[in-house]
């Protein structure tokens, strides 16, 4: 199953998706935490981007 979600952040609209097995046993709270982790990681990337590796 696919859960498309979005957050309206100071850095713009973040839209992403979770692809979960149909028989997943995640709770709603765990799914919400996964969504929050995605947007937190995105904001961290935007606000403090890592140095790009060479030669890729």
């Amino acid at each position, binding site marked *: 199953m*696919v859960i498309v979600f979005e957050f309206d952040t*100071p*850095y*713009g*609209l*973040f*839209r*992403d*998706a*979770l*692809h979960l097995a149909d028989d997943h046993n995640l709770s709603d709270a765990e799914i919400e935490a*996964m969504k929050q*982790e*995605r947007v937190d*990681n*995105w904001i961290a*990337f*935007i*606000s403090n*981007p*890592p*140095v*790009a*590796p060479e030669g*890729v």
Partner: protein
Amino acid sequence: MANRYWVGGSATWDSTAGSKWALTSGGAGGQAVPTSTDDVFLDAASGAVTVTVNTVQSCLSLNCTGFTGTLTGTATITFYGNLTLVSGMTLSSVGIRPSATSGSWTITTAGKTLAGMAFGLNASTATWTLNDALTTTSVIQVVNGTVNTNNFAVSGGTFFSSSTNTRTFNTGSSTLTFTSGGTVWNCTTATNLTLSGTGTISLTSASVKTFIGGGIQTYPTLNQGGAGALTVTGSNQFADITNTYASTGATSVLFTAGTTNVFTAFNLTGQATRVCTLGSATAAQATLQKSTTWYMGANSTNGGNNTNLVFTAGGGIDYLSVSYINGTGATASNNANFLNFF
């Protein structure tokens, strides 16, 4: 075409078959090293192992559903089908490159940050559609084929699509964020590039950065999202231009002298104590065009060498410091305030 399941434990994915590959999940090893016509599976039965790629490897699709191990290395996996990463795996440094020459494929990265993404380095008519947000630490390139962002967020260091190759970048309503300074967006040669979408291109670097527009007339909203001055080159057309960095500090947006950039809407604004400088990159005018009067706002500053701008409220923007800008396509010259400011 065959399936290849990793059963090699922690080992190097290279030209030596050994006992690393099986025909079925958790099956007996000893199958041949996958080629560009074989689907590769790193799955639950592969175990929490480390698969290292230090020489270029190929596969059709790369499917990591159920994999809890690490995929790492110094080289690149070129895949000619779908890419499916999962949140439970670790992805470290290895390059992953979509290389299909035809067909329609999906990219699912599950929140993993990739080293870079070059779509269609070889001549290609393939279409790649994102299944979720895409983040890379370096350049995102659209070289050949069609990329559909499917409205998901796309983030990277820089964007590059400069060639005469036939390619399409459908950005949908995505937020495209690029974080590097220097030439952060490069469409120098936009021949045969189709770009469409209604989202936003946001450039967030604190360093000076350049958006080489290449004359594309279908840009979505361009956002100044960082402290570093943004210079736009080329005569382009945008849905809108904004400045989210205004909530943090002062910044600049400059256009190359002699160019004409057209805007459906123009919402580039500063804030009190965080003025946005709007001007030409050099001491000669750049032209901005929109269909309504160029009201600059009551608190904006006329820095001189402007024409057809009206420094009163009315356009929804304010706190700009403006110089060497010619506003066209408006009725400013008929405005009663015009003579008061020029």
